[in-house]
């Protein structure tokens, strides 16, 4: 699409050879006659705006803009007005709205509905803080670029199969359902894996997955007085028996009343990657087993791999590494796209609050948050909201070391202590480049975020403020996929 040389097939290139970007301007505050004027019309021409079909108070016009920084203002019934909900600056000639259209390799801006709320405020902020707005102007994404990028990713994922996720060599570990729970956790801990599929010899098939959530639930159950599950019982309690018991417990924790047991979520090696990603997202699981059976009825299944979003993201990053211009949204800073969970700003309501923990909070409360908020990790912050560490579901397996779980009481141990335990244990997974906490800045581009998330073990990035490390939000692998797939 946007090449360094001018593509003659692009219909809207101006006579001067400059690329023009159609940009939507909206005035949603009524009026009888509304005009748009701006630096792009040299402030002389007033472009009449049309009231929207079925809504006479919203006026709209599409203008083709050249890349760069533009100022504009609305002329409403004989009066010059600016929109306070769109970026604006105060200049010599009064207050004007501003827009930045990026050049060939970057992304044009438009008023995307998703970005209107939150990120606009951010953009305003940027403008107000800087002396020269053109330096810091944050490009916003146009609906076309978003659609275009989603289309390309969708095409790519639909044509690739889960088979391509398989490493050239590697091992997969499955656990027998008749294994005692305790032993199972020691295996997970020793092997350094967060979860493992469960094999039922009797049925001759894979029946489920054992993961950190199971361990969390078991620990909480142990902590509950009057529980019929005791530490001693762990020695004999099999995974199968636990799963049965979990069906009962999960109804307590899981407000959704999800019916249990559910069938094993699995994929075949010839399923396309889009289906795999959708399956992971829809079932809210960390990974799905790739299971192959040469027979029609699915008997004698072979476990090939555990497919996770991280592997699929790696595939996307690899494919678009050298043609990033064909995915225009990749260069977009993350603060300008509706991605991840953000700490709401003052006066803003947010549908998804961002949970954080203080280091002295009890492990019990941390686990309760992990289970109830249906999140996989919680940033640990100090009194200034600066990021210290992060507590994830998978950190729970660290307690398997030296049977630590047997000695502790969830409400007596702090998150800080639990994390210390994890650091000593330092299992090989979950740590990439020796770093536990992976961070990014709001100004980082989507491609940078994606490349970091594609590293094994990195399941989320905490967005921090430069310098203070104040937590601004969090972006998880599934956030990225929900955005890329337009869910």
């Amino acid at each position: 699409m946007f090449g360094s040389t001018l593509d003659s097939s692009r219909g809207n290139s101006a006579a001067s050879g400059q690329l023009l970007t159609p940009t939507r301007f909206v005035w949603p505050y009524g009026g009888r006659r509304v005009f748009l004027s701006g630096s792009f019309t040299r402030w002389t021409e007033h472009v009449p705006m049309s009231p929207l079909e079925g809504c006479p108070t919203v006026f709209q016009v599409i203008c083709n803009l050249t890349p760069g920084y533009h100022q504009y203002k609305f002329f409403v019934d004989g009066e010059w007005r600016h929109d306070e909900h769109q970026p604006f600056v105060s200049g010599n000639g009064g207050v004007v709205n501003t827009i930045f259209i990026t050049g060939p390799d970057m992304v044009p801006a438009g008023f995307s509905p998703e970005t209107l709320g939150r990120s606009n405020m951010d953009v305003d902020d940027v403008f107000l803080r800087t002396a020269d707005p053109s330096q810091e102007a944050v490009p916003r994404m146009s609906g076309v670029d978003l659609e275009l990028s989603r289309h390309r990713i969708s095409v790519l994922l639909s044509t690739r199969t889960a088979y391509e996720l398989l490493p050239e060599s590697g091992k997969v570990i499955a656990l027998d359902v008749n294994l005692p729970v305790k032993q199972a956790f020691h295996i997970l801990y020793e092997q350094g894996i967060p979860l493992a599929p469960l094999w039922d010899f009797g049925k001759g098939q894979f029946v489920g997955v054992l993961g950190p959530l199971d361990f969390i639930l078991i620990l909480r159950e142990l902590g509950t007085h009057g529980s019929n599950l005791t530490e001693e019982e762990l020695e004999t309690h099999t995974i199968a028996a636990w799963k049965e018991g979990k069906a009962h417990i999960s109804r307590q924790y899981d407000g959704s009343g999800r019916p249990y047991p559910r069938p094993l979520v699995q994929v075949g090696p010839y399923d396309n990657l889009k289906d795999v990603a959708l399956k992971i997202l829809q079932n809210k699981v960390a990974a799905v087993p790739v299971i192959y059976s040469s027979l029609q009825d699915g008997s004698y299944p072979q476990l090939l791999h555990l497919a996770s979003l991280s592997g699929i993201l790696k595939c996307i990053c690899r494919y678009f590494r050298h043609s990033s211009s064909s995915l225009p949204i990749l260069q977009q800073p993350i603060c300008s796209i509706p991605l991840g969970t953000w700490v709401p700003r003052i006066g803003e309501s947010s549908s998804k609050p961002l949970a954080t923990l203080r280091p002295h909070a009890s492990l019990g409360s941390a686990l309760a948050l992990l289970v109830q908020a249906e999140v996989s990790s919680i940033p640990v912050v100090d009194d200034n909201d600066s990021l210290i560490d992060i507590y994830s579901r998978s950190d729970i397996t660290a307690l398997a070391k030296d049977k630590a779980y047997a000695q502790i009481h969830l409400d007596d141990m702090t998150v800080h202590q639990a994390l210390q335990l994890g650091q000593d244990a330092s299992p090989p997974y979950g740590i990439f480049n020796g770093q536990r906490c992976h961070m990014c800045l709001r100004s980082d581009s989507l491609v940078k975020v994606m490349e970091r998330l594609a590293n094994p073990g990195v399941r989320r990035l905490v967005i921090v403020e430069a310098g203070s490390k104040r937590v601004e939000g969090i972006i998880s692998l599934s956030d990225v996929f929900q955005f890329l797939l337009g869910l």
Partner: protein
Amino acid sequence: MADLDLQRKMVSPKLHVTIPEPCKLSSVSSPISSSSSAACSAYELYLRLPELRNLWSSLYFPHWISEPVLKPALQALEITFRLILTVASDTRPYINRREWIRRLDSLTTSQIKIVAAICGDEDNYEENVSAAPVSNGWSSLSLLSEIATCRTSESVGQKILSTIENEMRWCKYTLGLGEPNLAGKPYLQYDAVCLPEELHSLKNNPYADHIENQENQMLYTSHQILESWIYVSVNLLYRIESRIEEGKFEKASSDVYLLERIWKLLSEIEDLHILMDPEDFLKVKKQLQIKSTFPNDAFCFRSKGLVEMAKMSKELRQKVPAVLEVEVDPTGGPRLQEAAMKLYSRKTEYEKIHLLQGMQAVESAAKRFFFGYQKLVAAMIGNAEANANRTVANHESYDSLTQVFMEPPYYPSLDAAKTFLGEFWSQL
């Protein structure tokens, strides 16, 4: 163009001022607005519109849903026959008779095509077919038989008869005006529907006795045709609205395309002016006291019907959310645009695509009408009086006519959907 300020109805220009203070930009609140009421009623009286309106709206067949639309259409056709006879009997040696007959033949053909489309549309709905009043007999009152037998107009009359035969091919009945009817179809009760006798009693305009000018009759008759079609359109617009509300998008789209054709027909009718003798026309203009009293007052805005038709055509846009089945985002989000883009690219609900395309076709046909009208007026009375020479020179004082055809898109969301869809494909 036959808009008149008859001397006894002369009004001061003050009455035309709609907005007191012309601000820096154009001043008229809604580009489409009627002229002063005095000018409008002078126009109505001259064309005997109150009496014509009675004929258009006298419905005798309550179970026949096409009657409100078809009746005024057939009446327009019948008045066209009268115009053909008027031209054929014009005694002035210098008129361009050949071109007149050619144009009137073409105009008649366009009208028969639309009539046939209305009748053909009816055929799709079995339940209504029986409701159309048909019989075995021909019309005895239509002027077409006179045209087909009169020495000076015989050939055009025969041509019209075969046009009827051809165009009514897809309908279950035919008009019964003397066409061959080789298929042996039943005949519409033309005389009972169209009321030719009553129609022709309105043949003479109120000033026929004291204005000695044959262009007066041409002007009068052609505007009666124009007004009849405007009446058809208004009824058609009501039908489009209710069909969209009922979710009958396919039927609504066929009506919308009919409306587009009528807008084009109106241009064709207006263009007859160019065949009038220039000097006789300017004389009749003086005799009828037609003049523009205010820069923002085009002659055609004295027709309340036309103003209503234009407004309703524009207001069709309010139905877009209903067609796309989304609600508008009052904060300005592009919900409609995105819904339209999806509709266009999925291609599953194609009757909706047809309907929305038809609505945009109506917009362009309407704007084209006003643009053509302005050029026509300038050709007939000179640019100075038509205010047409100011459009380029003085950007800020557009006259009302220019404002209509320079108006921003009626369908901003469909417009944007196409822009961004085009952008999408140009980048792919």
